[in-house]
């Protein structure tokens, strides 16, 4: 049992750790966004659609905190990875009907666990940010090592020194994910059944969606955004009614 959970946590942490690299260290192709990361973790755990449902909501809630300069934003990738993984565990432990199948207000069971999990996982963001900050402090060492070699006239491979930073990002990210996912997995496998109270959470889920739309609207705010938003919304409603 524990061995299973350990394996599960390790697989998710390593996959998540690789995804975290896309945020800063390499590529920046946005596979680290919740919209991609959550279904990917869901796919690894055998249920991509569950991940997608989670990813959509997290994507818009955490849309507007870009990594400008030395600012380290909320680690929405880690939040998406952890929430998807813990949801999968809780659903499997959820008891006889299996929340996989539950639909409440037309919403899948996976999403109904999102609000309570958000409350638990959002504070963990501090750990991920700390891990990131630690890496960014230590990385200066690689710069100085490279600078020293060049000063001594040694033609070092700068790329090799550079990629040491990437390795460090991977190690700290994976470690931070593991120390949070492992205890949460154990907890979820015991308390998963307790979470099977969908009605509790349906209002909160609607709240999450509205918060997401507000966050997105705030992120793209200009002098005319509000008018465009309302016009497009009205247009869509009128089209729906006419059809």
């Amino acid at each position: 049992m524990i061995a299973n959970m350990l394996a599960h946590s390790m697989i998710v942490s390593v996959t998540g750790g690789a995804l975290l690299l896309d945020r800063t260290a390499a590529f920046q192709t946005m596979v680290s966004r919740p919209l991609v990361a959550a279904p990917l973790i869901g796919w690894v755990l055998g249920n991509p659609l569950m991940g997608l449902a989670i990813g959509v909501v997290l994507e818009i809630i955490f849309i507007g905190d870009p990594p400008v300069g030395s600012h380290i934003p909320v680690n929405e990738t880690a939040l998406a990875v952890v929430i998807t993984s813990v949801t999968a565990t809780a659903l499997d432990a959820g008891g006889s009907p299996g929340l996989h199948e539950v639909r409440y207000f037309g919403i899948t069971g996976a999403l109904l666990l999102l609000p309570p999990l958000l409350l638990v996982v959002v504070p963990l963001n501090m750990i991920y940010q700390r891990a990131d900050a630690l890496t960014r402090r230590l990385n200066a060492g690689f710069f100085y090592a490279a600078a020293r070699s060049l000063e001594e006239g040694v033609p070092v491979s700068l790329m090799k020194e550079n990629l040491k930073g990437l390795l460090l990002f991977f190690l700290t990210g994976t470690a931070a994910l593991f120390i949070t996912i492992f205890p949460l997995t154990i907890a979820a496998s015991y308390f998963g059944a307790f979470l099977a109270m969908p009605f509790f959470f349906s209002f909160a889920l609607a709240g999450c969606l509205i918060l997401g739309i507000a966050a997105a609207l705030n992120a793209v705010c200009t002098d005319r955004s509000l008018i465009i938003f309302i016009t497009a919304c009205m247009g869509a409603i009128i089209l729906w009614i006419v059809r």
Partner: protein
Amino acid sequence: MIVLVRVDDRLLHGQIVCSWVPYIKANALIIASDAAAGDSIVRGIMASCGHGGLSVEVESVDDVIRYIPAGADGDSKAILIVGELGDAMRIYEAGMRFRSLNIGNIHHEQDGRTLSPSVIINGEDEAIIERFEDAGVKIDIRDVPTSVAVAYARRPR
């Protein structure tokens, strides 16, 4: 009207355009830097960061002291960016009174004291900060508006 004064050794960059401008709803950026104002290429690039809703001006510190208070109409909302604390003090002493001073980026790594990852100050900076505090200017050390401000603690003497 100048609504924010910021010390930033990188002058104009992402944190200002992406975070502070929308937060304050500023429609003008005034960059007070002798080095940048003296270089026509730098002035051109910085000005190109503006658009219909945001004007970017690069002026020398003296020009800012001379012209900005006179042109302080109530309509515009401007952010004044200086490259170092000394320039901020020069402007303050020339009579432009601001109530708070945001410190975003200072990298004085030689014998520096680290206040936050992006603010590393030396002895001169400390003296200026303390003079600002004595004059009643609130010191606000943070990179972007959503970050938690770091408190400045005086060194025991």
